[in-house]
Every structure is written in structure tokens, then in C-alpha cells.
């Protein structure tokens, strides 16, 4: 019984201590501009649909950010997965592209900001589609090309690296035992390489989504942005609303952890063979 309560309590003990400590310090400091109290922040989080600092609701801004991340991330996945498959399967393609792509890998997504702004400015999907007014304009104008590019860069490399690793580390014995059955190249790809690499690809997608979500804050600090949770945080700082800053940070953390959790569930459900067959 004690043990069961222990396992139930263990994961929530650290956050609990953290919250108590936070509130204790906040009350003692007594300055909202340095550390807002737990009650102020939880008020914001409990009513996420309430308008804050006349920038729309917290939930609305998180949603806009999520859509941005998804669009940028989707492009990264669409490009990185096939490229990674090709690079993992063919030594020729790998050696001709690896050095080139390796040169861009160390550049932090944030370092792209000035160049990307020079390219795209404040152009958005609305600009691309030539829509200049109405509800659609408001929505599409949130999808700034510069932001999407930064998110794309952030998600691209983790997905690429993991896909290459997944394809190139298929055990030789699995390849050979399928080849002696007379499997064609197409069969080898669809029935051996792809399923064998799938767990790595999904891991790459999970890591990539995490990075994309983190790149978001910097992307939303770009000029021309008037919404999104990243912008909400920076704007809240300029109007000295630290409670909104913290509430925004908490939302980023919770959403990021949730996205990660979804991928982990997928990994456990569909790829348990990988863990068990070791």
C-alpha cells in the first residue's frame, strides 16, 4: 500500500516542491515585476480564453503558434524523410550530400533570422495567395514565411539524421535473409528498409517537433508578428506583465511535453518489437 502510494506520488513530488518554493519566494519578494505569485499565474492558466493585455486569449495565441509549428514542421518532415531514406540507402547520395548538409547543420536556427528577414520580410501565406482582407487574411497572415522557415530549419536536421541512421543501421542479416528469398529492390525497400527504419524515423520526428516548438519563440519575436505565444511573452515583458510571461512559458512547456508524449505513446504501441528484440 505504502509502495503504491509512493509510485503514485513520485512523479508529482518534484513539481509540488517546486510550486511551494515558488510561491514562498514570490510572497517574500512581494514584487510582481520580479516574480509573480502562483495565484496570479494560475488565474491566467485557469481561464485561458480570457483576453490578456488586449492581445487575444492565451489559448488563442497558443493555437496560432501550434498551427505555425505544424506547417513549418510538416514541410521539414516532407523533405527530410525522403532525403534521409535516399541518403541512408545509397552511399553515393550520402557521400555527395553529407558534407554539404553538414555545413548548414551547426548554424543555429536563430542565426538565420536576419537573412530570412531580408528574403521574406513580412510576407505571409496571405501575400503568397494574394488575399488582402477578410477572416482568411487574418489567419493566413499569421503564417509568416520567415517564421515557417526558422521552424523548418529547426525540425529538418533531427528528422534527417535519424532517418539516415535508421536506414543505414538495418542489420545485415535481415537484408541478406530477405535477398536470398529473391526479394527485388522495391520489395527490399518497402518490406525491409522502411519498416526497420520506422522507429528511428518516428524518433527523429519526435525530436524534430521538440526543436521546432522551441524555435517558435525566436520565430515569433521576428518583426511583423502580432500574435502567437512567443510574441505574447515578449510583448507582455514590454508592458511589465511578468505573470503573463510566466503563464506563456508554462503553456509552451505543457504543449511541448504533450506533443512529446503523443509520439512516445506511438513509439511504445507500434515499435515495441524494437525494444523487445534486443
Amino acid at each position, binding site marked *: 500500500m505504502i509502495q503504491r502510494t509512493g509510485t503514485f506520488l513520485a512523479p508529482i513530488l518534484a513539481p509540488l516542491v517546486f510550486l511551494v518554493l515558488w510561491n514562498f519566494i514570490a510572497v517574500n519578494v512581494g514584487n510582481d515585476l520580479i516574480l509573480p505569485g502562483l495565484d496570479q499565474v494560475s488565474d491566467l492558466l485557469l481561464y485561458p480564453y480570457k483576453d490578456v493585455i488586449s492581445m487575444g486569449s492565451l489559448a488563442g495565441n497558443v493555437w496560432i503558434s501550434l498551427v505555425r509549428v505544424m506547417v513549418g514542421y510538416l514541410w521539414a518532415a516532407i523533405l527530410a524523410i525522403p532525403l534521409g531514406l535516399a541518403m541512408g540507402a545509397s552511399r553515393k547520395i550520402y557521400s555527395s550530400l553529407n558534407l554539404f548538409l553538414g555545413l548548414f547543420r551547426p548554424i543555429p536556427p536563430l542565426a538565420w533570422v536576419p537573412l530570412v528577414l531580408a528574403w521574406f520580410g513580412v510576407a505571409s501565406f496571405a501575400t503568397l495567395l494574394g488575399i488582402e482582407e477578410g477572416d482568411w487574411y487574418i489567419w493566413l497572415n499569421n503564417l509568416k514565411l520567415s517564421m515557417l522557415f526558422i521552424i523548418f530549419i529547426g525540425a529538418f536536421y533531427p528528422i534527417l539524421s535519424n532517418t539516415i541512421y535508421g536506414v543505414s543501421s538495418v542489420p545485415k542479416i*535481415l537484408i*541478406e535473409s530477405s535477398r536470398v528469398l529473391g526479394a527485388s529492390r522495391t520489395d527490399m525497400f518497402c*518490406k525491409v528498409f522502411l519498416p526497420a527504419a520506422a522507429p528511428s524515423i518516428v524518433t527523429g520526428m519526435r525530436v524534430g517537433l521538440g526543436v521546432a516548438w522551441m524555435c517558435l519563440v525566436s520565430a515569433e519575436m521576428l518583426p511583423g508578428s502580432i500574435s502567437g505565444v512567443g510574441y505574447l511573452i515578449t510583448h507582455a515583458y514590454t508592458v511589465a506583465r511578468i505573470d503573463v510571461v510566466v503563464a506563456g512559458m508554462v503553456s509552451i512547456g505543457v504543449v511541448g511535453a504533450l506533443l512529446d508524449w503523443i509520439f512516445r505513446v506511438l513509439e511504445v504501441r507500434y515499435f515495441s518489437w524494437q525494444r523487445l528484440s534486443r
Partner: protein
Amino acid sequence: MTPLLETSNLRKDFKSDHGEVFCALDGVDFKVFDKEFVCLLGPSGCGKSTWLRIVAGLEVATSGSVLYKGSPVKGPGRERGMVFQEYSLLPWRSVVENVALGPEVHGMRFEDRRELAMDYLARVGLEKFAEAKPHELSGGMRQRAAIARALANDPDVLLMDEPFGALDAHTRVLLQKELLQIWEKNRKTVVFVTHSVDEAIYLADRIVVMSAHPGRVVETIDVPFDRPRSRSCKGFGEMTERVFELLEGVQV
């Protein structure tokens, strides 16, 4: 009579990372005839597995020729099935899906290939484990499934590369017996690589004894014992002694 498989003057050199050339096979000639059970016996490093892999089409010989029914081998093909020493089932597929893989890549319909796979699973006594994943099986069961997979693809010749090498002694003897039972029902040509003298004499019609560094054929021995075979049959012990002496002579 043309042999089913024939290698002549087969040579295979491997290059080490330091650029040294290492000769694994040095002019190996031998023939395998239809419906024959041949064991390739030799110490480790004699190139017996290399010979098998070249015949399977997984390696390319440095020189010499490999003929299958009189025409040169150019790569893997379904007429030459293979069973490996390592566990080789696809870990994400169930056992029956693994066994059905050969027919699947040759375009057999789903129901037909499933039925066929179940039939072969029954032959190796694994029908109850059809839906299990490979990691749920013991080593012996995995090798049984690997044999079923090779047979379900209907090859002319079964190349077996120390298939029981990773199993415990008891399971190993059990699987040898089962293999012979399957083979006697439906005689395929089998080339079986092993370093166990006992295994070779128990299984083979003919034993090809090889020496190491470089790999050469030392002697070919016909095994005259009746089937179904027993280790207590007359002459089994004497032949074991003789082969051991032969191997002692070739080992440095």
C-alpha cells in the same frame, strides 16, 4: 549427369583494413548433386561459410566459377534458399508473416501464401506460434521458423550456414532429427555447413572436409549409414574417430 551446383578453382581473397590480402578460399572444386545432403566440415577460418555465401550469391568470388545447373551464379535467387546461424527473422513481422515473405515477394495472393506458411509452420511444429513475434520465441523455435521460411519459398537447394550453431546441445540434437524428418519427406538438395564432426556424420550423405589458411578441400567422405540414422549404429564411432584424425592433421 550435370551436378546441381559446381564450383571450380574457386578463390576468394578478402582485404583487411590495413590493406593486407587474406585468402579465404584457395582453389576449391566440388560438386553437389540433386537430392544430396552434403556437409561442409572444417575448422573456423576454413572458408566453408564463404563458399556457401558465394553459392548463395551474397559474395562474389575473386576468381573461378560457380555454376548452378550449368549456368553461372550472378546473385541471390529463390532456387537457392538459405538458413543463417544468426537469428534472421524480421522482428516486426509475426512468425507466419515471416514464413510467408518468400511467396509474398513472388506475388502470391494473401490467403494462399498464408495457408502455405501455416502448412510449413505445422511441419516444424510451430503452428501454435503463428501470430507470435520472433522475440517471443526461443532460439530453437526461431531457427525452426527460419527453416520453414526457407522451405516455403520452394527452393531447389537449401544452403544452411551452421544453423544450429547458436543453440544449446539438447535443442541442437532435437533440431538435427527434425531436419532429417522433414528432408526425408521431401528430399531437397541440402548443403549444410558445420564445424561439428558428430553433426556432419549424423546428417550427411557426403562430407566435404576442409582445411584452414587457406581454405582447401582435403577429402570427401561418403557416409554409408542407413536412414533414419542413429548415433549408435555400427561404424558411427569409428568414422567419428577417423574424421577427427583428419581434422587434427589439417589444423596448424
